[in-house]
């Protein structure tokens, strides 16, 4: 069910009303039923995979918890009988058992994700390998159904499992409460990927009606719809036109695609998250923020601390750190320190872990080489700028004032956003060699005149629509900047008339200028094929 469909609006409205009519103890059960219904409507057969992940994670979690408690009791009983050494080896043995169970859980769930999402891709490449070596017969690509949001709920469940293993969180006893954590519907569509410590208790705790929560939450939902319907879906019309025959839209059109796609994906993704977080806030549930004004980031590294934050922290906590501090990596760094000197030795674990993390991040985004190359390019930029740090420091020492000047920050931010935009077009051109050729064509094909001679008008948007798109985008960024020191909703909160009229105005703007209905077909979320 699309966020922009009438059915979802009705679904959300009924849920919100029902939520506050239900007695507090029953609220989480309503949420669970709503989430399962939401999932059922997306495709009944998908539910099986969700339940498989939820039950397996729950089981492994409870087993590890039980093992840990058993370990504590035996330790206290044997306090006198065992010496320190014996106690230590007993603890190590038990931890090994728990680690094996954790591995079992991880392999089962990540295996399911891999099979469902990447078999087609893997078989396709094996076929190409077979062709390369002249083999005639090839494997047929099985058509597997891809459950909605499998990447999100799998990652969320696995973060819970690892946290239980790390004893940061104690396992959830109640199976249905855990199922709610896995299946909580708004974040199934495109995240955020929450941690059990933050979300678990909130979901099952009862929430009294609070006018502030409901108002602020629904205002944020409304703003999400503004970004999605007025900006993202309108920009998508041109993007689709350009993607219809990418090879024939070169030069200026590639630059237009970069800028348009940057705006489109920002509006679409942050809009979707606004709807998710806003709806949860209206029910008193605070989800982790997934964005922090990414267009202000002055470097790629900072960009990835502000864009899709919950994915970034997930990969850092559960891939990057474990990989870089694990025994083999440490030994490797010690070895290379002895043979290739301190400088190299120090960098090996960091760089290896970064490359691996970004490879997996790319792969996670989609089953395609364009996503993997997108990931590795991001990694390349980060590592190169990491290497250039001494260069930058020397540069800033020569121009000390520069580092503080706002203009320079603006230049850096523009450069970063543009760079991210360029790399991100791998997402939409979906074909690596074609993307590189098109990037090149920006400098070889000089059709920048098309921008002014009306050629842009037959890409699906008339003059009025283009102007509206530009104005709406400017408004979106302006409102975001206006809210830096104090959230806009807080400012409005103090003046009820201003708040009410702002809500009314935005509502009417969406209704009139939204790119929805027969004239425009509502677009899928960019991340919906997850």
């Amino acid at each position: 069910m699309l966020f922009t469909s009438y059915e979802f609006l009705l679904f959300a409205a009924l849920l919100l009303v029902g939520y506050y009519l239900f007695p507090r103890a029953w609220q989480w059960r309503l949420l669970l039923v709503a989430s399962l219904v939401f999932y059922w409507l997306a495709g009944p057969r998908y539910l099986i995979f969700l339940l498989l992940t939820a039950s397996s994670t729950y089981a492994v979690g409870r087993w590890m918890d039980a093992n840990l408690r058993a370990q504590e009791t035996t330790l206290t009983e044997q306090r006198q009988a065992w010496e320190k050494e014996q106690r230590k080896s007993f603890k190590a043995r038990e931890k090994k058992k728990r680690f094996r169970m954790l591995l079992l859980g991880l392999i089962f769930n990540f295996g399911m994700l891999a099979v469902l999402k990447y078999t087609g891709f893997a078989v396709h490449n094996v076929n190409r390998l077979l062709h390369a070596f002249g083999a005639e017969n090839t494997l047929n690509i099985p058509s597997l159904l891809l459950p909605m949001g499998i990447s999100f709920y799998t990652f969320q469940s696995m973060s819970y499992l690892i946290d239980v293993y790390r004893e940061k969180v104690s396992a959830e006893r109640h199976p249905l409460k855990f199922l709610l954590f896995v299946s909580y519907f708004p974040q199934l569509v495109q995240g955020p990927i929450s941690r059990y410590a933050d979300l678990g208790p909130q979901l099952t705790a009862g929430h009294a009606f609070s006018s502030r929560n409901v108002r602020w939450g629904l205002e944020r939902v409304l703003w999400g719809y503004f970004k999605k319907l007025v900006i993202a879906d309108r920009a998508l019309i041109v993007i689709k036109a350009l993607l219809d025959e990418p090879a024939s839209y070169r030069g200026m059109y590639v630059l237009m695609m970069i800028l348009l796609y940057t705006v489109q994906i920002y509006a679409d993704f942050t809009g979707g998250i606004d709807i998710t977080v806003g709806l949860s806030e209206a029910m008193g549930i605070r989800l982790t923020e997934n964005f922090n004004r990414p267009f202000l980031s002055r470097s790629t590294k900072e960009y990835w601390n502000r864009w899709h934050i919950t994915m970034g922290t997930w990969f850092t906590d559960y891939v990057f750190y474990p990989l870089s501090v694990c025994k083999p990596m440490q030994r490797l760094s010690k070895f290379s320190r002895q043979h290739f000197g301190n400088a190299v030795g120090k960098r090996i674990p960091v760089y290896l872990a970064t490359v691996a993390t970004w490879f997996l991040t790319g792969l996670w985004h989609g089953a395609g080489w364009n996503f993997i190359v997108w990931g590795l390019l991001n990694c390349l930029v980060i590592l190169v700028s990491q290497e250039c740090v001494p260069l930058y420091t020397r540069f800033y020492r020569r121009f000390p004032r520069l580092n503080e000047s706002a203009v320079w920050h603006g230049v850096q931010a523009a450069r970063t956003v543009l760079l991210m935009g360029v790399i991100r077009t791998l997402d939409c051109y979906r074909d690596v060699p074609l993307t590189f050729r098109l990037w090149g064509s920006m400098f070889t094909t000089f059709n920048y005149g098309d921008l002014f001679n009306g050629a842009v008008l037959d890409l699906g948007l008339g003059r009025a629509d283009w102007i509206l798109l530009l104005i709406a985008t400017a408004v979106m960024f302006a409102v975001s900047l206006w809210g830096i020191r104090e959230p806009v909703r807080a400012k409005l909160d103090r003046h009820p008339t201003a708040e009410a009229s702002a809500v009314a105005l935005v509502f009417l703007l969406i209704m009139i200028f939204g790119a929805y209905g027969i004239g425009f077909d509502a677009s899928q979320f960019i991340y919906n094929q997850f």
Partner: protein
Amino acid sequence: MEQLLNILNELHPDVDFESREDLIDEGILDSLDIVTLITEINDAFDVSIPAEEIIPENFNSAAAIWALIEKLDEA
């Protein structure tokens, strides 16, 4: 402790590590710095900091890092 401080200064010479209590929260040490730091510490103090110990409380200040090292040392 001094050895730890030189490692930190080598990473970010312009940061006063003695007094600061918000190395992670303020984003002074990011994920790349932390990993480089851990590799240095593991090598210098012959400990091995496991991934689950990489949490803000342990890395927000030099003292916190030192406490972690000691805890791992005699565990």
